[in-house]
């Protein structure tokens, strides 16, 4: 196991203000090569959790172990396995080029200059930035800066990569390229990746497991596919080869069918009335298509967070 978080809690107390419970009893784990998406509305505790994992914020209780080393007690060993790109545009020095940043940050990590140059050139090639190696970061687009920041975080071959909102503010093309890079990292080099994002499509496209947090607590966690299946509404769209007779339409409407056209309808299947029972009502008509309406993470997120807010 690359990352193990056990019972992490953090409360911020400001003089004169009520204490804010940023994170409460948070536990999670990550294996090598796994992408884990950490989702939640603003102020849910995502960034605080990621900073506690990186040792930048100390928890009130609980522990974080990276490759078996506690971030609190064996900080140096634990952090040697971590690379991070934190939220916000600046993770590097903009007045320096990509390679100069690599040499500086690699040097601080104790990497030999020759090794950094080789690894840096390799990463720039993989990330499609080879032609930009001599440009200072301030001359690069936001997407390129983000990719250079990820390259820098990968110089020392970390086993755990923390990405806080990696695609925030990027255009579609840049966002796609960052996603491609993240997927490649997990698949090819077995890096465990923990990412926070507001972009549900990004989480759905990348993460094998997702976790939704609200007010510092995990309210839903599981494999992305299982979560989507669990929250599926059971709505099916049925398309027929020819229009249905008005009498049959009325009969089905009374049962709850919604007509999109005389030859297509939407039905809600459930335990009381499964889909095959609906289809029996259409006996004699040639069915062209039956499709289960897909659930997306955005809808799951809204359902979960709204339900939690009202309870």
């Amino acid at each position, binding site marked *: 196991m690359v990352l193990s978080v056990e019972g992490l809690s*953090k409360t*911020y107390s400001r003089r004169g203000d009520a204490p804010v419970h*940023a994170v409460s009893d948070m536990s999670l784990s990550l294996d090598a090569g796994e992408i884990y998406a950490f989702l939640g509305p603003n102020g849910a505790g995502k960034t*605080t959790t990621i*900073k506690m994992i*990186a*040792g*930048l*914020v*100390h928890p009130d209780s609980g522990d974080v172990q990276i490759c078996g080393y506690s971030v609190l007690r064996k*900080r*140096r*060993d634990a*952090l*040697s396995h*971590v690379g*991070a790109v*934190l939220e*916000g*545009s*600046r*993770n*590097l*020095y*903009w*007045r*320096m080029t990509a390679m*100069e940043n690599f*040499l*500086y*940050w*690699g*040097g*601080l*990590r*104790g*990497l*030999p*200059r020759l090794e950094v140059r080789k690894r840096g050139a390799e990463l720039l090639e993989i990330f499609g930035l080879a032609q930009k190696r001599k440009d*200072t970061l301030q001359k690069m687009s936001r997407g390129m800066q983000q990719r250079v920041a990820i390259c820098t975080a990968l110089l020392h071959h970390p086993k755990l990569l923390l990405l806080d909102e990696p695609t925030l503010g990027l255009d579609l093309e840049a966002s796609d390229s960052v996603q491609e890079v993240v997927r490649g990292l997990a698949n090819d080099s077995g890096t465990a990746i923990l990412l926070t994002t507001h972009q549900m499509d990004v989480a759905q496209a990348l993460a094998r497991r997702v976790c939704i947090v609200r007010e510092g607590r995990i309210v839903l966690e599981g494999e992305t596919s299982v979560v989507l299946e669990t929250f599926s509404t059971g709505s099916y769209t049925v398309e027929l080869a020819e229009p249905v007779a008005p009498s049959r339409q009325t009969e089905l409407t009374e049962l709850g069918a919604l007509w999109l056209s005389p030859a297509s309808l939407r039905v809600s299947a459930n335990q009381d009335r499964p889909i095959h029972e609906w289809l029996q009502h259409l006996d004699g008509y040639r069915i062209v298509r039956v499709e289960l309406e897909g659930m997306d993470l955005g809808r799951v997120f809204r359902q979960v967070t709204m339900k939690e807010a009202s309870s």
Partner: protein
Amino acid sequence: MTQARALLAEFYMALVQLRRYPTESISQLVGLTVLFYGLFLGASYMSGNPLLGHRLSDIIVSYGLWTLCLGAVANIGHEIGNEAQNGTLEQVFLIPLGGGRIFLYRGIAQLVSQVILTSVVILIISLITRHHLSFSALDLVPMAMASLSAMGVGYLVASVTLLFKRSGQLLSIVQFILLFFIMIPFSSFHGWLIDVTIFVPLGPMIASLKQMMVDGHGLLTVHGWFWWGFVNVALWLGIGYLVFLKTSRKAARLGVLGHY
């Protein structure tokens, strides 16, 4: 090896900035030269006749020492403020070596650049005024030690910056305290005042420098001030570093490390 590479990385960054933005360094050089030259002219005007010999050297070297120490006190805090404003401070603290060590190396790199800059300025002043300053390379030793002691005070200032991200007011007070220290005639103290001087930031180094420059003593014959200088450096650098480490932990507990 990691430590050496980290120190080299800081020198590398200073060099990259110098190469990429030479105008900044040149304007700093010109500014300092003009300031020192003004000091030279001012001192001549005040005394009514051109200053010669040791007296002028004292003024220039004292002022050089003051700028060096001021830089050493201000650099770490200034860097932390800048890094917090730019958003790179948390990345620095993510490095296994830790922020304390990285800022120490950065401080050393900046100190070396500043020693070079100050030496060049003093050389230019000598050339412009056609005046030989009685300044030997050995004088740089107590100056460098004084800067290290000042760096300890710099860590204390940086600790405040780490928590509040502002240190401007504090630095403006500290620069006058430093100037006051440099003016104190530590080398002529007797009795218990000597014991106090050992523990005053920069105290033994200022005493050494004055005895070397004014009384013509050698580095090792300055009545033990040189050796007490090591105690002073260890004390202030140690206190400053420990307070900084403790404050870093407090900032992490409060969750304000990356705030600005």
